[in-house]
């Protein structure tokens, strides 16, 4: 994989200048186009469908506030995935880390009796620790035993879901038919701002975190070290960066942030831990991070786009014969296209005569 990256890297010097914006926009445009064709095939008018999506998510205060609500968890999971991917660590376990954070916040939220000034911070710390713990295992296994963190994260996601399911349906189940923990105390609840939606103080925390990491990534030694690690871990190692230590640190931060996303859901939106509450925010986080090109400010923009799509999709489902899952299709078409980092180089080298540097790679094309 690494040699391919080296082969392909110099082949789009021009695109490198405008890449930060062009690539995401092209991906979104392709997704919208493919989605439009799908809509057409299902017998609906694509322009009408897209205008419903935009209208249902952005026009009017209630719709806009719902968009902000839908965007909140994606801020956390998107940022969590972005900082780990940027450092070359494929943390696709944000879903499980978020669930463990939410579970920790849910337990601290109802089981502890404290004044608000202490209760909210304690619940947030618990959520951070829960997500962190769930990311620590893949990180340590990666560093000590060189186990692929992707595989471990992949297995830890269902473990988190099943464990939290066990806790919320058996161990600490609230009385009543619903599978959930008891409601959190009012002292642990994150304040909401409006009656129209559940957007809450967690949204602000997510925004602040994104800004903090924009500064950390762009303006500190740590952020630079993480970037080098992601670009070339061997170079980073020989350059004196303590790669294993930094890798564990990045994974812990990433997991902790995903855990805070769980706290936003439990303390802000649902006010209790519900079994199976996440419709896949951890995986949507991958989509957000890819679209953001792993940049924290980009995460805010991408989370806004996907939050708007999710918000609009409920309206779409009500007003047309289409399913809200159209939005999921759009999201992961975007991911697929953005994952194909080198397709631009491929297109370039196909149209013209193959450039000289493509020659050594030729046997691979067979």
């Amino acid at each position, binding site marked *: 994989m690494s040699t391919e990256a080296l082969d*392909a890297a110099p082949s789009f010097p021009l695109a490198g200048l405008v890449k930060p914006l062009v690539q995401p926009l092209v991906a979104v445009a392709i997704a919208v186009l493919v989605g439009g064709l799908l809509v057409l095939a299902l017998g609906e008018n694509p322009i009408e469908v897209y205008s419903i999506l935009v209208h249902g998510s952005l026009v009017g205060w209630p719709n806009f506030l719902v968009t902000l609500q839908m965007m909140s968890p994606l801020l956390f999971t998107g940022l969590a995935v972005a900082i780990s991917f940027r450092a070359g660590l494929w943390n696709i376990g944000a879903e499980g880390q978020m669930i463990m954070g939410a579970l920790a916040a849910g337990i601290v939220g109802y089981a502890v009796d404290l004044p608000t000034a202490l209760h909210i911070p304690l619940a947030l710390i618990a959520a951070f620790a829960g997500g962190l713990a769930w990311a620590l295992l893949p990180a340590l296994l990666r560093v000590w035993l060189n186990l692929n963190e992707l595989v471990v994260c992949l*297995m830890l996601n269902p473990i988190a879901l*099943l464990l939290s399911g066990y806790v919320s349906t058996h161990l600490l189940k609230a009385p009543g038919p619903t599978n959930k923990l008891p409601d959190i105390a009012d002292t642990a609840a994150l304040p909401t701002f409006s009656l129209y939606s559940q957007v809450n103080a967690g949204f602000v925390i997510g925004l602040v975190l994104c800004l903090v990491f924009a500064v950390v990534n762009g303006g500190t030694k740590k952020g630079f070290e993480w970037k080098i690690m992601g670009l070339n871990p061997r170079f980073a190692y020989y350059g004196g960066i303590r790669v294993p230590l930094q890798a564990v640190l990045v994974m812990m931060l990433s997991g902790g942030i995903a855990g805070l996303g769980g706290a936003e859901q439990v303390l802000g939106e649902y006010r209790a831990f519900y079994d199976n509450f996440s419709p896949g925010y951890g995986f949507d986080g991958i989509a957000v991070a890819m679209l953001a090109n792993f940049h924290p400010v980009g995460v805010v923009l991408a989370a806004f786009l996907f939050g708007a799509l999710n918000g609009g999709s409920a309206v779409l489902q009500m007003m047309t014969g289409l399913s809200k899952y159209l939005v*999921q299709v759009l999201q992961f078409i975007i*991911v*697929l296209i953005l994952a194909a980092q080198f397709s631009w180089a*491929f297109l370039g080298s196909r149209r013209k005569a193959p450039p000289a540097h493509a020659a050594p790679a030729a046997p691979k094309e067979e």
Partner: protein
Amino acid sequence: MDADLAFSAIRISTPLIFAAMGGLLTYQAGMLNIALDGFMIVAAFAAIAIAYATGSLTIAVAGGVACAVVMAGLLALFNLRFRAHIFIAGVAVTFLAYGLTALLLRGILGEEGVFSSNTIPNFPPIAIPFIKDIPVLGRVLSGHTLLVYVAYLCVPVVAWSLYRTRWGLRVRVVGEAEDAALAAGIRVERIKVQTMLLSGVFCGLAGAYLSLGYVSLFANKMTNERGLIALAAIFFAKGRPYPTALVALLFGTATALSVRLPQMTGAAPQLLQLIPYVVTVLALIVVGLRNARGRNRHGAWKFDVT
């Protein structure tokens, strides 16, 4: 009761065996295909939609397999041609498949979340001539539907083609030493595409069995992470066909128990469902410990796949 449990364990393991055989081929060719669930869900949907439209199970299974192969082709295209990271592309293909099937479920069949129909014919159970007369074993092994037998017959076929044919040798060389394979003149990319498409075929059969095998029903995300369990079996058995099938059968038995036990004892089903994942993480740790012992700990930060 025990024979019933064993019977249902064999039945429940069927899609796991199919998916594990599919994932195993790409694993042997050096690709970790995590989109098994995505291939399966597409096949499950296509199979039931086609069966509903035509009333023919044969066409339905063929159509399901064809759609799964198309998804496999999509992943192969993005991974091999466009150089997308296989995990990211795999996650994308899986969730794309989940979304697409849910979208089409409402768009084509007009149902929300679940579709079932009693006009679709069922697979007839097949009794095996001599085995069915053996006292206990007969009740366990005989009386399944065609796809169940096909699944278990796939295991020796896959083992044979991997270890006894020239093609299988090439697949394993590609997986173990891609550079050596290239130097030896093996068409690496072609082998990889072939294993990925075959992976689609097996997952297609798994998906068709899911939606048409027990009762004719499709639900959103109905694969229920069976692809992940199959992947766990592959990791656990390091991609060898017979052990992988055996582990898949054990994981299937755990699933069958997780359906049965709570009814009788009131135990939590989640704890039994945890088994495949926990066991796999533990197995990975054991393998990692074994490898770490022999490795120079002062090397650079190494990035091997698995």
